[in-house]
């Protein structure tokens, strides 16, 4: 039996048709890397705040091109501005990344299950991110820092291809400067003149992090192969399966569990996930047929 972390769908708390995109205006576009951009959006018609929980995603509709699921990467404590970090990999995401200030984007959401922030209070929290996977974890980091006293040690372990592929470099530097947050960043390869940090896989950072395996929640996002090896490394460090939480990715289309595109065994990633506790999906995880 597959159990989801948060079975109930949180979307459309405002009662608006979940299939109807709401117009948002692009307020700002920030270039993070050569192919990844962060968009700040504000509602076009009304000034309603956009409440969401860390880990949730929106469907972004570039009119005339297509719609894609993108994790919310902003601060849940600042709901007036909606922030998404988008990597230009396909036709729709490339079109979104080319948007300029003032252009209109359709937004549906928020959808999906959140990170277990409440359930993790009192625990150490280890955040393991690979590549663009840091984007869906950033709201969780904001939440942890805003409620710092409720958590034990916090470690952010982040891996990317090269130093040029690192997201949110200014924030990473700020976070590294804190005394109450361990930040370790590694890259797959680098030139000595551009990088003085570790080179290697992100899983190699796990044994170096300070945490109590019995009282740790591990939040993991990245390519599925990376997450598989991360789970193995966490298990080696005696972190239990029910303490490991993953954000899964599949081809989400409707985002409300109707279309079946993102079916994952007996669950739908869009409404039962994307955030799952590992013990709830471990029978499915890594299965080739799914």
């Amino acid at each position: 039996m597959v159990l989801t972390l948060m079975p109930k769908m949180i979307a459309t708390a405002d009662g608006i048709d979940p299939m109807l995109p709401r117009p948002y205006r692009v307020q700002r576009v920030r270039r993070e890397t050569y192919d990844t951009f962060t968009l700040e959006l504000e509602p076009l018609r009304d000034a309603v705040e956009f409440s969401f929980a860390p880990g949730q995603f929106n469907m972004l509709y570039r009119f005339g091109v297509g719609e894609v699921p993108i994790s919310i990467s902003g601060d849940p404590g600042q709901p007036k501005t909606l922030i998404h970090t988008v990597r230009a990999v396909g036709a729709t995401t490339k079109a979104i990344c080319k948007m300029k200030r003032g252009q209109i984007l359709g937004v549906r959401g928020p959808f999906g299950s959140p990170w277990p922030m409440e359930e993790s209070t009192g625990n150490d929290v280890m955040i393991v991110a690979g590549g663009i996977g840091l984007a869906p974890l950033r709201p969780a980091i904001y939440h942890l820092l805003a409620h710092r006293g409720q958590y034990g040690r916090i470690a952010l372990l982040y891996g990317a291809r090269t130093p040029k592929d690192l997201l949110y470099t200014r924030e990473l530097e700020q976070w590294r400067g804190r005394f109450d947050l361990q930040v370790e960043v590694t890259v797959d390869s680098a030139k000595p003149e551009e990088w003085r940090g570790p080179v290697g896989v992100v899983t190699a950072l796990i044994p170096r992090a300070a945490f109590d395996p019995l009282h740790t929640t591990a939040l993991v996002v990245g390519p599925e192969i990376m997450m598989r090896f991360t789970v193995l490394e966490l298990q080696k460090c005696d972190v239990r399966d029910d303490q490991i939480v993953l954000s899964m990715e599949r081809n989400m289309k409707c985002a409300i569990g109707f279309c079946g595109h993102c079916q994952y065994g007996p669950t739908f990633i869009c409404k039962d996930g994307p955030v799952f506790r590992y013990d709830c999906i471990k029978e499915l995880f890594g299965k080739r047929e799914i």
Partner: protein
Amino acid sequence: MEKLERLLAEHPFFKDLDPRYIQLIAGCASEVTFKAGEFVFREGDLATHFWLIRQGKVSLEIFAPGRGPIMLETLMDGDVMGWSWIVEPFKKQYDARALDLTRAIVFDAMCIRGKCEEEPKLGYELFKRFSQIIGERLQATRMRLLDLYGAHADA
């Protein structure tokens, strides 16, 4: 010598190794310090030593003509550096350069090989431990070959 034996016995790499063997190995070991930027070894060098990094950071690099040095991996506190001494032709494949001030314990490979010849069980123990490290680094290399974080067009 006593201090070195204690340091070795406390290190995870030598965990549960017979104290007699620790004593033997310590006889082939000494402490060493590298300044930031200093090369520990160069590609093509004979693999006459291996190191246990106590503190600091060392980058393994390869020099590509037209591109300059490329960092392949970094080794840090607690890591073992160098396994070419155990595998023929006993030559270093990469450059190793200290990125920070690095303190290490250095082992004379000829000396260790001699002890292993005298004490085959010690040789087997070391071989098992180095195999673990070689396996871990091979796995890490394979993971990076997958280019996990690369863009894969989907939307």
